[in-house]
């Protein structure tokens, strides 16, 4: 964010202390302390009555590596990655096409892109469920067209969950991509072609690196929520599809195994930190590349 250097206020006053106190106050009480509590919980033992007990242990983290759980985590990760890939495949060409559209139409098109976000995501998940139901409009249309003879079992499958997640998260992939495409200078692509690079080489060596910050930002905004949105897996996947979010929820609210749930949550936080770091790195590399 561009910072405008301001002349400092003439003297330290009461207002300053009050405002800083308020800001630090809520950040400490509602963000820092609660997260430290989770970290502490992940390092404690399980206790049937008080949720947690000493001594400190790494047991919960070890259990995350248990083949049974590891399997579920990897499946969930695969689902979230498929969602991210789906958003990228749909969103990348979309963002590029949008940045090429006549400037007069773009605000309207961007508005239409964000509009679904203002509708309840649960209601939209339900709409997808209705659409995919055995006697829903999609099967109805396919039957009427004679493309199928019997309704397809679309609901309660991995595909349904991925579709639902893509549907809910697509705008979060498109917006950062659109932002980098808007700033992209087309001359760079032309220069690459002029210098003899083919379309594929231009795409791989010029376009992808230039849009990498957008790709990573979009991935960040899609991958993490896709891991956690347990209600989408519940509604569209039945009991058959589990996300990391479902596991964490079960551990906390049903099994009451706090240390394990906390460790899974710390794992998610670590994944976020990793992605944030990658994003920063990509942006810095790009900036350094541009500098004369």
């Amino acid at each position, binding site marked *: *964010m*561009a910072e405008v250097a*301001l002349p400092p*206020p003439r003297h330290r006053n009461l*207002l300053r202390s009050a*405002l*800083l106190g*308020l*800001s*630090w106050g*809520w*950040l400490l*009480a*509602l*963000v*820092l302390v*609660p*997260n430290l*509590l*989770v970290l502490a*919980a992940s390092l404690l033992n399980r206790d049937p009555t008080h*949720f947690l007990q000493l001594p400190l242990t790494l047991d919960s983290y070890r259990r995350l590596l248990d083949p049974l759980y590891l399997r579920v985590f990897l499946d969930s990760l695969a689902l979230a990655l498929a969602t991210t890939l789906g958003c990228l495949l*749909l969103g990348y060409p*979309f963002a590029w*096409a949008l940045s090429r559209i006549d400037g007069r139409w773009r605000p309207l*098109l961007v508005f239409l*892109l964000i*509009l*679904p*976000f*203002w*509708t*309840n*995501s*649960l*209601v*939209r998940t*339900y*709409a997808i*469920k*209705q*659409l995919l*139901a055995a*006697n829903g*409009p999609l099967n*109805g249309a396919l039957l009427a067209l004679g493309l199928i003879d019997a309704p397809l079992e679309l609901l309660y499958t991995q595909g349904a969950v991925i579709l639902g997640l893509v*549907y809910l998260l*697509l705008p979060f992939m498109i917006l950062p991509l659109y932002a980098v495409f808007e700033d992209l200078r087309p001359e760079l692509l032309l220069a690459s072609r002029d210098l003899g690079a083919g379309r594929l080489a231009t795409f791989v060596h010029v376009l992808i690196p230039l849009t990498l910050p957008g790709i990573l930002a979009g991935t960040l905004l899609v991958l993490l929520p896709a*891991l*956690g*949105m347990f209600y989408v897996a*519940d*509604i569209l996947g039945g009991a058959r599809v589990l996300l990391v*979010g479902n596991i*964490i*929820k079960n551990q*906390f609210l049903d099994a009451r195994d706090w240390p394990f749930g*906390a460790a899974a*949550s710390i794992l998610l936080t670590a994944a*976020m930190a990793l992605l944030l770091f990658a994003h920063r790195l990509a942006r810095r590399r790009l900036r350094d590349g541009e500098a004369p």
Partner: protein
Amino acid sequence: MSGRLPRLWLALVYLLLYVPIAVLLLYSFNDARTGYRWGGWSLRWYRALFANDTLMDSLWNSLALAAAAATLATAIGALTAFALHRYRFRGRELMHGLLFVVMMSPEIVLAISLLALFLLVGLQLGFTSLLIAHLTFCLPFVVITVLARLAGFDARLLEAARDLGASEARALYTVLLPAILPALLAGWLLGFTLSLDDVVVSTFVGGPSYEVLPLRIYSMVRVGLKPEVNALGTLLLVFSLLALALSQLLLNKQKS
């Protein structure tokens, strides 16, 4: 790389985004109970919706919670944004970083951390715990929105007000506040929507004493299809469209 293909792609994605919403709207007026067969136009699901007391109660609960959380978040968030913008203090970078991290954290991580806090201090889960939790996830969005607006504000206006004898507080109130009003409105609306939309956090920190709309819908649609949800979804869509239009109108008025 040019020609029709890009436009076709745009159309395809918009189709994907709007077909489910169209299904929702259309089915809310469908007299048939379920299925793709059209049973004729009817308002029966709207009647069923208004007759469903638990659903309506949870709607009012959610609206009250969203309004309270958005209002508190706007007030506190604006003050935090102002502090970040105006003052140079130790830990300023850390504060920026923390805000960014809260905004990026998966909802479920935030939900668990707050649940741990509430249990530690012995807070009964209900309206208060929901309010605090919703306030927390709304705050960073308000701060960022207001900060963006402040970046375009000419600070010399404040200095001028001070030179003309206004106290710091008075200068802020009469000069700065009107300038950032659109951002406050946008932040409030964003917070209100986020709160009304939230499933994940409410699942963890909500209690039986205060049931919110998303959790009610959640338990309704987990099994089977409930057509009155279509009617509710349609009403919510119309409501948010009106709110958006109203805010655009106010913002344009502000500009001219």
